[in-house]
């Protein structure tokens, strides 16, 4: 427990590390989401064009 308390600065230290982890997770999630959306939009457009032809 002593290690987690960080000499009384635990709240500051752990908040910073958690925030850093969250930023990476959010960036990764948003990058994947953007790629998936673009890919799906193109897929739908190609399919629609194929149906017309």
């Amino acid at each position, binding site marked *: 427990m002593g290690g987690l308390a960080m*000499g009384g600065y635990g709240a500051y230290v752990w908040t910073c590390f958690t925030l850093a982890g969250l*930023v990476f997770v959010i960036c990764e999630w948003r*990058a994947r989401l953007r790629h998936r959306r*673009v890919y799906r939009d193109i897929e739908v457009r190609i399919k629609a064009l194929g149906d017309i032809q």
Partner: protein
Amino acid sequence: MWKFIHQLASPPHFYRISALIVPWLVVPGLLLAGYATYAGLFLAPADYQQGDAFRIIYVHVPSAYLSMMAYLIMAVSAGIGLIWRIKLSHAVAAAAAPLGAWFTFLALATGSIWGKPMWGTWWEWGDPRLTSELIMLFLYFGYMALRGAIDDTTKADKASAVLALVGAVNVPIIHFSVEWWSSLHQGATLVKKGGPAMDPGMLYPLLAMILAFTFLFGALLLRRVRAEVLFRERRTRWVKEMILSGESS
């Protein structure tokens, strides 16, 4: 070498190559981050003045470094796109902006959290590094807003590239602000004459974390550029063929 770079600038080639590179950045990035987190939190000795609060350095410094690195990548890519009209360059610039904004936010937030117990305040407007870093966050917002406001991609590329290049003047200001003006921030610790002014037990986890952030940032950037390339090339034959062939990466 030049042939490889020339090939890499071709959107279809980049799209396929980058998918292969991403795991080679993620795996060492995660391993290094795991080591650096453990060593930084539990193995590094406490600072004789700041105690354990100094451990915030292991996320604050890498994020501050990446906030500037992302801006440089954005400005240089935008400049290359503007001068040589390489399509991929504008895609890189557009992809770097949101990542840069996130890491600038992280640098500001962790700096503010660190400042409270050490300086007794969350924010100090008179500090040149805090203010110039905040200006960089606004530059990222401005760049993204400008891109979003112009429907024509070519026009958006040109206008935002000019903004990115003009705003690049802020990067050396952030870096040298602690030397040029009176600042609450300490001077350079890592990059200074005579080598880093840190105990090796503190220094190695920090270097490992900087490397980890760089690898993971590289992977995130490649992922974003891939999405940007796909969007810009959505009407091309290679994208159509790739999607019809069921290639999902």
